[in-house]
């Protein structure tokens, strides 16, 4: 029974790590924290996979190294988890590299600020209607007023003529 409780504890721990990580990714507002939360979530998932092959008192799954009759842990999850760890490390390294680029481009890693800047950027690159296409800040508009672009006062009501004039 001891082994059962131990497994259960680790199982709950693994799922807990995954949930903590996933929540962290959803609620944090800083890109680097999101990345750290991702690392936590990934370790939770990896732990769960290792656990699926776990046998209490099992030995390493190497033929010829020990007593073949002894129960071995299942090697397939270990292979899978090695792959997953390697992929995870690669993706995280790529993410850090991108973070540096993002910081160089915008000077901030705050999600909300970046989203505003990027939306403005996308709109500007797409055409001329940056004001009108401020992307659906549902309820957020009063809090973060769009920077005044010096267009005629009620220009937003009729974007078509305003845009026609600008290019």
């Amino acid at each position: 029974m001891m082994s059962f409780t131990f497994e259960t504890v680790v199982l709950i721990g693994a799922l807990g790590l995954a949930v903590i990580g996933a929540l962290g990714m959803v609620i944090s507002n800083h890109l680097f924290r999101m990345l750290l939360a991702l690392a936590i979530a990934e370790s939770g998932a990896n732990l769960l996979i290792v656990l699926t092959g776990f046998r209490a008192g099992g030995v390493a799954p190497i033929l010829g190294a020990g007593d073949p009759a002894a129960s071995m842990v299942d090697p397939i999850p270990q292979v899978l988890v090695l792959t997953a760890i390697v992929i995870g490390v690669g993706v995280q390294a790529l993410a850090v590299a991108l973070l540096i680029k993002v910081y160089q481009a915008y000077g901030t890693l705050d999600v909300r600020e970046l989203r505003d800047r990027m939306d403005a950027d996308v709109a500007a690159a797409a055409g001329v209607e940056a004001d009108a296409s401020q992307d659906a800040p549902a309820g957020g508009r009063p809090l973060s007023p769009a920077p005044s672009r010096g267009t005629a006062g009620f220009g937003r009501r009729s974007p078509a003529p305003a845009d026609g004039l600008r290019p």
Partner: protein
Amino acid sequence: MIADMTLSRLLAADVGYLVLPVVLPLLGAFLMQPLARVSARGARILGPLLLVLSAGITAQLWLQLGDAPFSLAIGGFAAPLGILFYADRIALLFALAIPVFALLFWPEFGPGAGGRDQAARRDALMLLLVAAATGLALSGDLFNIYVFYELAAVASFGLVALTGTGRSQVATFRYLMISAFGSVFALLGIAILYMQTGTLNLAQIAQLAPETLPNPIGLAAFALMLIGFGVKAELFPVNTWVPEVYAGAPARVSALLAGLVSKLAVLVVVRLLVLIFPQPEAAELMLVLGVLGILTGELAAWRAKDFPRMLAFSSIGQLGMVFVAFSISGEIGLLAGLAVMLHHLIVKSALFGLAVRWSGSLEALSGAAGVSPLASALFVLFALSLIGVPPLPGFWAKILVLIGLAEGGTPLDMMALMALLLATAIEASYLFRVAIRLYEDTPTPVPPPARRDLGVAALLGALLLAVTVGLKPVADRLGEDAAQLGERALYIQTALPSHVARKD
């Protein structure tokens, strides 16, 4: 070309060559950098050459081995222990479509803007994407599916960030985060499946599934994997990356991601659904998420003010429809799903091809028909097919979904049916708005699409018209494809060891 033909004739006799469409691009991707040091010209033609070769090998295999599914135990290790490639008609169709579409939307054949090193990097990433996508289409076990899925993800991160602008880097980062989030979910789902069945081989899981998985735990595993693989398939809650990425990435890359890569993720989900999770709750979950995708995508597309983002949102809606179609039980669901999926592959890729030069706001497109009548006519053709105007294939795809839903008849089905009709109205509204603008009489300087993109779009438009004319044979073939895709017993029989083709 002739050398290629004889080469593929030499190669094609053995099932074992099924690995080549994956291995060749993979090898090419890693040879690209050293080769570029030696000969820039050689590196430039290496990618397209390997794609032609892969497509030729797949086509030759298909011609020689016919339509019956076959599987290949890689390295000669039989299935439950070894890993396998499983090729049925749909898998082969995608294995053929991937290099062809990659060739059609190859970023640049010339050295491009960034110079030689940048070109080699870009081509290497494209080849990686092709290898991973082909691997996804062919893989018969979860381990490989996971690895290829991640490989496709990493390659697409690189391709999206290629433009090097700040916004594309932010978009890539958010894409990466959501994608990695999805991977964690998929891994959890795979872990649960392994816990319940003790294997990662799809066929063996399918054999064990009726006893071990029709329970809440199995359903949880499906939900986790649906979310996980749904990231690439633009499934509803995990698709927030779509508009930013398609607005920031080069339009040809967007065409590949929206057209091709999303479909492969859908194919993985469909395999899971057919083989492992036949319970109705799984399909219902997919239906609900699909309906939410349809509504949010189409409404957002209606509000969009620039061409790429309108296409991006509309592709969310269309993929929602794909999920709704596949959630219909029975063969009609598979048939409808395949039809919608292939239709979207052709149409959305072509539209993104037009977006290469029309990347600006929709308002700036007014009068484009005067500059480039062919491009505008093609846009109208694709728009009509997307909306589902009768003689065009899009109509038949959509009507299949509607019939399937009506036959299902549950309240959920009816809700989906209503959503689909509503979405059609919204679609018509925003697509016609653009079409009217194209034919407006106010000549503004709109850049005409480049000859190459226009050619690709015209080719795909001609394909669409050809399907319209030859609807009957295409529909028959698609029906057989769907029947084969839905046969669980056939998959198990083909993939499991006693029947595995070995190279000895």
